[in-house]
């Protein structure tokens, strides 16, 4: 069983306008070239690093981390001096479900100070961790109406 690096006609960015384009073959050849050369670079790295996203809205900051294959019990969160640390243990199992290796993952994310540290909540669903960090009242955007005389 091997990785199919390329399947013949799948994407046609230069879509043929009149039935088919003579460049179609050339384009897919170029695509295949890049696919073979860069294919493994484009694959997400998953051994020791995991990707993190930061979002905000007017009430909260959000941190989303992709941790596929971990369970809730494998993840722990810490908030120390403005840094949110995500710790996780990825357990590599063999076919019988026996743990053969544990890879420990951790990452610290600088969080703006204006966060209520004891009201942080986290949810884990489908391998994605979402941490909600509520903003302090004074950090929320305020609307001030100024009378013009």
């Amino acid at each position, binding site marked *: *069983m*091997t990785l199919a690096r390329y399947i013949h006609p799948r994407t046609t960015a230069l*879509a*043929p306008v009149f039935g088919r384009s003579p460049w179609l073959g050339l384009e897919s050849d170029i695509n295949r070239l890049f696919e073979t050369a860069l294919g493994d670079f*484009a694959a997400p790295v998953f051994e020791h690093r995991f990707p993190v*996203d930061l979002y905000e809205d007017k009430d909260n900051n959000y941190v989303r981390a*992709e941790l596929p*294959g971990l369970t809730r019990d494998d993840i722990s969160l810490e908030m120390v001096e403005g840094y949110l640390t995500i710790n996780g243990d990825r357990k590599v199992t063999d076919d019988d479900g026996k743990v053969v290796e544990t890879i420990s993952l951790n990452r610290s994310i600088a969080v703006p100070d204006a966060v209520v540290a004891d009201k942080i909540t986290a949810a884990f669903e489908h*391998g994605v961790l979402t941490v909600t960090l509520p903003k302090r009242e004074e950090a929320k955007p305020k609307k001030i109406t100024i009378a013009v005389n």
Partner: protein
Amino acid sequence: MTFLQSIVPSLARPAQPAKVETDARVRPAFNLREDEHGYSLTVFLPGVPKENLEVTDHDGLLTVTGRRAWAQPKEWTALYRETSRAHFELVLRHEGDIDLEKINAELKDGRLHLLLPKAEAARPRKIAIN
């Protein structure tokens, strides 16, 4: 025309239907192990629930397609991003030695575990010598 076709092979191919798949796909991280009984495939699909996952086998190509369920709410502003919104697609070619009826798939916390047993005919057999 035949000379031209020999230079530009795409002219000799039958016209493809205008089926354009423009959505981006990334190949998910995966592990593949083989033993005498079959293959064990682990695919990491963060953010993909069961109903968005498709495993198909067609023409010797085993395809795992997963679509992320989460979409960024309108009020959220991205400050920093490392993940992509692209769907996952993994295509593996096999030589028809898999017993398709007995594939066992399990998706848990963003990790898909597939057990693909080899067909009886493809397993190594010891031949008795008289």
